[in-house]
């Protein structure tokens, strides 16, 4: 574009290549040239995390932000940030966010909209669920309502002085505090500074001593975000469960405190746990996870329709105890943790004359099931405890058995007063147990909606393949155990070029790392001449050894005949091919706030560093990218050839790397193998960098492309090519070993890719 002032009409009439983008542009009805400039990019970005119907809401929200009369900024920020927010917390957060923006606009706080949107993505990454975002909005709304226009009794004319500051500080604060802590911190600010606009600004800008002090005070307990990796490892190592962990906040719903649960989206746990007596926060998390994992292993859902709420409650208590008994069998030390967290109801604490005591009876029973030293005297209780243990004596028993035991117990101990409204709650809440929603099936109102993935979710850019005619490769059909001949068409093309200076900038950013690598490289670098000692025949006498041998000889011992040394030029004779997955999913963002980067950008950095390092080392390296759009169109993009140096031409291609479409890996591997196989080298290595499993839109059976890729790896192996996969998919375990055998590594921290890729290469070829 040329410089100069563009008129409003210009922007509205901006033409976009892709018809869908053009439609969206029309829909946002926007006259800002700044927005037009980045619009296409935003849409592509959004398409990686939003469904088609969610796109409409996204565009509509953007349109609304353009009409606020606050210039281009709110809309611009929203367009850029929202996909990343949706990525962290799901698209469900859009509605409350839009409502909140409308509320700000209606009050005099419209100026705070931009700061709000600017940090929302970082906040979302920390909060990790839509519910938590709503809680965050509640906190902000409270501040807004209570500090707007209240100065000297004026009527809603002044904006809240603290609000924009809160938004600015939110990512920082949420790194240290749970949401409940943030709420308390905000409440304190409202209480003490609602009448001092300047002080209020300072408080919320974290410039006052007491705003820091209150923040410190709220920093207690173990934050989920800080122990997430440990909890992941715990699940995996002790229970072989690799499910997602999703945090929620406990500070908001005063009436119905949320309790842990699990559903198809993962295991839900509180965002913070304070120590409970001697049990630290981390062990409380472990107790919660163990309990839920136990249900997943051993519980079966029951039909709930015919049972009363009391009966269901009893069944839950019994089943929970069975689960925990089994958990303690696996790890006996868990009992100490469970018992320390489990209340110890006092036997006579509940008066059945005035109070409903069923909960109390069940909680005592629960204690007694787990604690041999419970000391309760009630005969009925002791009878049931004995039955419980008898059922579990020779095996895990099952949910149905527990249910009948529980129902019998309830029937036998039933009292009129159980129906009373006043319920005894003290010492009956066992807070590491989940809400047992998984235990019940209601036949009546089952709503089994069928969701299906819309294959058109992704926009197909029109194909503009120019270049060589396609090469055809077979694909392995694991059902028939035969190849489908010439099944895939691989189009090879020269990767487009960008600005090589961008890559130099990236490398500069990693100057420290480059220095560290350089040191390692120098160690690995083939010295022109390497001395080989202990040779019987060699080009030179090795004096040290010869002398030693002579001494041995004179002393009558057998001398070592290997007294020569020779030289050889270093045997490092390796050819490497780096095959980079350039599928759509690489647009995903990693990291938080300012430093957030897409996997694509990280891959570019990693590829650059690796190419730079290997160039210094002198191993011949080729680089290619691939993606696919059905078997008819596997694209293989040449980025660097073995004989090309790491120079501006190659850098320019790396700079232009982009992502789109799917991952038909087998075809790409075979094509890469075709080149690598032609190299003369002792060692031929094919490194694959990918963020997911093989997939393509014309394949519905996920096993198919996996099996094909595995086959391709085997084919390469017989050609003497070693394939190694670096996977960025934390869920890769389920398939990566199946495909690559032992030759893979899963990178749990994607943001460290730029440093890890070259390090991996160096360690693999040491």
């Amino acid at each position: 574009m040329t410089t100069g002032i563009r008129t409003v009409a210009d922007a509205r009439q901006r033409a976009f290549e892709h018809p869908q983008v053009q439609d969206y542009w029309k829909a946002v009805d926007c006259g800002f040239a700044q927005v037009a400039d980045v619009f296409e990019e935003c849409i592509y970005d959004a398409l990686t995390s939003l469904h088609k119907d969610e796109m409409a809401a996204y565009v509509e929200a953007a349109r609304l932000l353009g009409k606020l009369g606050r210039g281009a900024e709110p809309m611009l920020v929203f367009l850029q940030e929202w996909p990343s927010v949706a990525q962290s917390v799901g698209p469900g957060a859009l509605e409350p966010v839009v409502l909140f923006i409308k509320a700000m606009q209606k009050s005099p706080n419209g100026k705070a909209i931009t700061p709000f949107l600017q940090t929302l993505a970082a906040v979302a990454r920390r909060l990790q669920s839509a519910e938590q975002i709503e809680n965050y909005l509640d906190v902000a709304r409270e501040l807004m309502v209570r500090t707007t226009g209240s100065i000297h009794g004026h009527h809603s004319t002044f904006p809240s002085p603290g609000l924009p500051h809160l938004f600015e500080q939110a990512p920082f604060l949420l790194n240290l505090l749970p949401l409940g802590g943030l709420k308390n911190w905000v409440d304190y600010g409202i209480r003490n500074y609602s009448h001092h606009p300047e002080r209020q600004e300072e408080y919320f800008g974290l410039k006052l001593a007491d705003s820091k002090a209150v923040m410190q005070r709220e920093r207690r307990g173990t934050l989920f975000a800080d122990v997430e990796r440990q909890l992941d490892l715990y699940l995996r190592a002790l229970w072989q469960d690799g499910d997602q962990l999703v945090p929620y906040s406990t500070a908001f719903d005063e009436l119905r405190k949320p309790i842990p649960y699990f559903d198809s989206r993962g295991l839900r746990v509180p965002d913070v746990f304070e120590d409970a007596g001697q049990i630290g926060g981390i062990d409380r998390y472990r107790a919660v996870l163990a309990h839920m994992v136990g249900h997943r292993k051993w519980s079966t859902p029951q039909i709930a329709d015919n049972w009363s709420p009391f009966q269901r409650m009893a069944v839950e208590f019994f089943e929970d105890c069975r689960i925990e008994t089994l958990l303690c069998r696996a790890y006996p030390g868990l009992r100490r943790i469970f018992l320390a967290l489990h209340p110890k109801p006092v036997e006579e604490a509940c008066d059945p004359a005035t109070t409903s005591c069923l909960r109390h009876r069940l909680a005592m029973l629960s204690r007694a099931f787990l604690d041999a030293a419970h000391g309760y005297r009630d005969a009925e209780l002791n009878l049931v405890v004995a039955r419980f243990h008898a059922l579990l004596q020779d095996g895990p028993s099952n949910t149905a058995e527990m249910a009948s035991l529980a129902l019998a117990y309830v029937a036998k101990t039933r009292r009129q007063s159980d129906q009373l409204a006043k319920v005894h709650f003290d010492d009956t809440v066992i807070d590491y147990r989940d809400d047992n929603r998984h235990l019940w099936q209601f036949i009546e109102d089952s709503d089994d909606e069928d969701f299906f993935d819309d294959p058109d979710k992704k926009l197909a850019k029109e194909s503009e393949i120019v270049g060589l005619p396609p090469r055809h490769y077979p694909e392995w059909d694991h059902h028939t155990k035969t190849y489908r001949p010439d099944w895939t068409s691989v189009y090879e093309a020269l990767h487009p070029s960008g600005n090589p200076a961008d890559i130099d900038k990236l490398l500069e950013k990693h100057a420290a790392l480059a220095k560290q690598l350089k040191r390692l490289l120098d160690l690995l670098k083939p010295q022109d001449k390497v001395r080989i000692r202990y040779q019987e025949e060699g080009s030179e006498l090795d004096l040290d050894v010869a002398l030693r041998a002579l001494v041995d000889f004179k002393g009558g011992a057998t001398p070592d005949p290997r007294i020569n040394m020779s030289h050889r030029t270093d045997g490092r004779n390796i050819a490497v091919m780096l095959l980079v997955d350039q599928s759509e999913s690489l647009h995903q963002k990693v990291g938080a706030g300012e430093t957030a980067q897409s996997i694509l950008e990280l891959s570019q950095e990693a590829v650059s560093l690796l190419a730079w390092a290997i160039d210094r080392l002198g191993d011949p390296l080729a680089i290619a990218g691939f993606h696919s759009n059905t078997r008819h169109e596997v694209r293989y993009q040449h980025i660097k050839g073995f004989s090309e140096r790491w120079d501006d031409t190659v850098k320019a291609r790396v700079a232009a790397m982009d992502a789109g479409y799917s991952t038909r890996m087998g075809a790409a591997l075979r094509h890469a193998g075709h080149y690598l196989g032609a190299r003369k080298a002792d060692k031929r290595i094919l490194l694959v960098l990918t963020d997911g499993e093989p997939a393509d839109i014309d394949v519905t059976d996920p096993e198919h492309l996996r099996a094909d890729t595995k086959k391709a790896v085997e084919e390469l192996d017989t050609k003497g090519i070693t394939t190694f996969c670096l996977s960025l998919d934390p869920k890769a375990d389920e398939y990566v070993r199946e495909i690559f055998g032992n030759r893979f590594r899963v990178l749990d921290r994607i943001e460290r890719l730029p440093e890890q890729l070259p390090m991996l290469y160096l360690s693999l070829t040491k």
Partner: protein
Amino acid sequence: MDKTQYLVKQEPFYQAQGKEVALYEAAYAAKLPVMVKGPTGCGKSRFVEYMAWKLQRPLITVACNEDMTASDLVGRYLLEANGTRWLDGPLTTAARIGAICYLDEIVEARQDTTVVIHPLTDHRRVLPLDKKGELVEAHPDFQLVISYNPGYQSLMKDLKQSTKQRFTAFDFDYPAPELETLILTKETGLAEGTAAKLVKIGQVGRNLKGHGLDEGISTRLLVYAATLIKRGVDAQDACRMALVRPITDDADIRATLDHAIDTTFV
């Protein structure tokens, strides 16, 4: 040459995991070269030792390393006061006397060293001693066995396809829990209950393979821990010392394994 010095005198304790004993006997009867694959410390060497005992064949073991040359396997001339004398290397000795020659961790050796075994592994069954000008024909009882850990994360340390293609292979892995427990009790005399707990910790560690651990906790390390416990060391200390500290410095992984230990031994 005194063959008997290479005989395995006492029956080594070996717990079979499957049909490997019978299969090995068949391979030996046909004098096929054997490769035993598997992670570190899963019982590969113990198996070979046991088979040598069972077949009553001499066993010559060579622990391979990077500095090893072909002469170290084949033999060399030595200087003596009045001239030189040829000394057979272990491979040559084994070929002459009809021993089982076991090249342990073969990938540690350089590839130019490993090629000397090739002529012994095909139908010729010969070993040329180039320097000596002799062609040794292998004794009919001679057999070549190599061990190899495919889990090595260095691509440099892999066997050439042309080498691999010369062997029949056993794929070993860490034994199933009941078997591994049995191994620990028989090997160290530890009580079954405690042994089962150790095995459980082993399993926990193996679940983290690929998530910060390159290899899990080996049977060998479990035997170490069992030995320490048997000698009166506190079980939790023994586990930390033998199972956790050697394999990782990652704080999160340590915390997780420590928790498994604390909740398993109470």
